[in-house]
């Protein structure tokens, strides 16, 4: 129980910082000083102190959505290693549980959007559902590759530190996994080039417009949930790189540096790229799937 609480609070505490790093990087590229690193934290705290406005159209579904989003995001973090912190819960096949947990989160986000009866939110929900259908197949292709490399269905075995030795033999496959998974990360967390979290026009938003009607405490929960999701998916990617090492602290430091670098990369991608047109997003995702499929072919040729 203690390890679960430790894991969850670790993710809760550090996840907003990651968004702070992204914002700082973007500000740097724009030649600005940018908001402080802790700004996402300040935002959440500010939202938690504000009251809410509920639409008369909404039902309890709308109020359940923020809770479901944060709860599923937090639960998802207990299956993955955070640096040298071993996951508190693992079982054979938890990788599938992990993926479907995000399905649960998405389900609630989408019906929460439907509940407002607003056409903007419906539009965002529709796009989110369509894009994540496509990103899910990339995710599963990556999962297939990781399962075949590690011969395990346990998420932490697929990512754990001894896994680094497989870079020597399975390097090309893992590079393809990393690239396609990075794409999944961008889609799932609504980053540029798929979605622009900072756009001011509701018509062009995907993820942000789905939560347009949430306010105050509820919005705080949702923002925190999204941050945790970014943190969790990011730490999966970083876990693939962590080398084998002995000491606890070294591993943690390596992990934190890795996460900061990831946030930096996302920030750079956001700064140097424009958001894609909506109808060319499926093309990008198809490209990601092709990369993952290539990995599958490589692994089959290598004779597993």
């Amino acid at each position, binding site marked *: 129980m203690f390890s679960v609480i430790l894991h969850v609070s670790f993710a809760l505490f550090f996840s907003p910082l990651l968004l702070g790093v992204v914002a700082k990087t973007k500000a740097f590229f724009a030649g600005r000083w940018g908001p402080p690193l802790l700004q996402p934290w300040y935002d959440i705290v500010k939202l938690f102190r504000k009251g809410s406005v509920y639409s008369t159209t909404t039902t309890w579904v709308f109020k359940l959505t923020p809770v479901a989003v944060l709860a599923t995001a937090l*639960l998802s973090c207990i299956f993955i290693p955070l640096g040298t912190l071993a996951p508190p819960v693992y079982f054979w096949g938890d990788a599938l549980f992990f993926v479907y947990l995000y399905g649960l989160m998405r389900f609630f986000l989408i019906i929460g959007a439907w509940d407002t009866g607003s056409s903007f939110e*419906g539009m965002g929900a529709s796009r989110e559902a369509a894009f994540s259908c496509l990103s899910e197949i990339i995710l599963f292709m990556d999962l297939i590759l990781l399962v075949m490399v590690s011969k395990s269905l346990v998420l932490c075995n697929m990512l754990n530190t001894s896994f680094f030795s497989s870079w020597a033999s399975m390097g090309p496959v893992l590079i393809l996994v990393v690239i396609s998974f990075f794409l999944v990360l961008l889609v799932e967390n609504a980053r540029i080039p798929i979605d622009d979290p900072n756009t001011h026009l509701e018509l062009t938003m995907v993820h942000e417009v789905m939560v347009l009607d949430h306010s105050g405490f509820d919005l705080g929960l949702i923002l925190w949930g999204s941050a945790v999701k970014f943190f969790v998916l990011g730490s999966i990617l970083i876990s693939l790189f962590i080398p084998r090492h002995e000491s606890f602290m070294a591993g943690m430091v390596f992990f934190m540096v890795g996460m900061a670098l990831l946030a930096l990369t996302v920030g750079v991608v956001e700064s140097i790229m424009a958001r894609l047109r909506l109808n060319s997003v499926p093309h990008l995702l198809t490209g990601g799937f092709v990369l993952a499929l290539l990995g599958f072919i490589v692994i089959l040729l290598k004779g597993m």
Partner: protein
Amino acid sequence: MIAFLASLIFLSAGILFLALIRNRPPWARVVFLTSLTAGCVLSFISAVYSLVTQASFAFDGHWAWPWGEFYVGLDTLSAVFLLAVTILCFLAGLYGVGYLKEGCGPEKDLSGHFCLYLVLLLSLVLVVTARNAVLFLLAWEAMSVSSYFLITHYDDKEDVRQAGLLYLVATHVGTFCLWVMFILLGTRAGSMNFDQMTAAQFPLALSGVIFVLAILGFGVKAGFLPLHIWLPHAHPAAPSHVSAVLSGVMIKMGIYGIIRVIMLVKHFPEWCPMLLLGIGIISGVGGVLYALGQHEIKKLLAYHSIENIGIITLGLGTGLWAQLHQYQAIAAIGYAGALLHVFNHAMFKGLLFLSAGSVIRQTHTGEIDSLGGVMKYLPWTGVLFLIGSLAICGLPLFNGFISEWLVYRSLFEGLFSFPLEAVMLIGFAIIALALIGGLALMCFTKAFGAVFLGQARSPHALNLQENPRLMIAPMTLLAAICTWIGIFPNTMAAFCLKAAASISPAGKNVPDIENILRPMAGITLSLGLLTGLCFCLVLLRKMALRSLPVTRSETWGCGYRGSTPRMQYTASSFASPIVLLFREALCLRRSGSRPKQIFPERVHLASEVMDASEHFFWQRVYVWIREICSRLKIIQCGYAQMYVLYIFIFLFLILIWKVT
């Protein structure tokens, strides 16, 4: 076994009584409910007993019929199906009494409908327990015919009659293949009893032929993708409780038949599991894509049945492949996933059809885009439909996840055991299953969101009343079963694993059921944590909001204040990104135009998804058959004397054949 036979007697007695009673609706209802309850409860008990003790029973009532015997038996495989049949038929029957009460007014006599419902139930029970091919086919035929009459309950509507006819034709084409298949099996085994067939050895070529016939014959009933065309017409045409039974258990009889054939024949050529996997991928992805394009809620659910049959078939295919290559553990997981999905699908699809029926009963329309905001009037139905949707999307907390998880697991474990050519196909199967999951989520957020949430899009969805308790209670029970299996999967999964282990012939390495079940504890634990987290957050939120100002206002329209319910996003628009992406495969037809000038005039746009196999394949086959038949018309000259002559010629030919 006695309980089981007693249930058969109760059901037959109920059928007899109902056939005799005329124009006494209260009596008919009492007889129906008594017979239904007694029959279902007794069968349920015997099924559970058989699963717990793992014993199989058989009863052979010697019966003077060429090749036929009244030979019924109950093993673990039959018991799993029997469980689904009894639970769903019982609850749907109760619901049906409430559903039809006002729907057709007091003057219409329902004893005929009730009688046929019991015939369907009895024949379903007999199909899963028959141990003799002739008895099996008789029960199969009774099932098909009684369900035809149940589908055409609202026979004053033209499209209902059409749907019924299509179903009748399709099912008989299937039955024809089954006759041929059982004759092949029977002549080889020297008996029509399943016991002798199990003992017999079949050459590989023959078993390949048998397998294809089984796929065709049972596949029509199950709704494998190119053979499914009757299904999306028949399910919406039937009253909702009948659709629930049709979709929940009757189409599963096709799956039961295929598994039974696998048990009888045991050895198959290499391509058979490949064929199953291929069918699974096509049916699964195709079913859900077509479902996404539907505008009518029951039609959408009907296409989802095809999708779920696809998932079940994926499990069966992996199981069969593993069985042929002696991977007993993977075979057990694959089959168990398929069996559990059969049971789960019966529960959640039953729940969905019944709750959709509750909506239709109140709003008198199933058009998704003319509903909206139904949740405010029908809160219970809304929650139940939500549970069904979460379950059918395979999301954790509900039963759909458990069976999909088992199917996934068999596929993933196949990845690192199977040979190269199988791994490729299995990789595609996993991707297909992932795509099915994503699309199903889109489809059910669409159905639930557009029907139950938001504001009413037309007067149909205004001022509704919640349905009577007699309809809510059965649905609640189904939802409870869905949640129970979702959180504590061990009992049901163990039953399915036992049944699955009995499918493949006991090899050297018997699958270790305990070992397979162990991760389930992890699922239970995680779900416990999830509920705990949700509970804490809800409490926190309550406490925080108590001291904060909470106001109610209208939905934020991005500055625009004059919005009306008609401006809400529609279900069709919601689905359009994916429908447009797959427009070639879905044969999307659009008519009408988009608004053009700055001040646009009134425009009309309609879109429709055409079923490719129906419109481009079967339509052509029909035309072709009709041409052949019109040429054969010369035989039918209209003189009775000629027909008598034909009979004599035929008898004469038979005589010659017998003498030589």
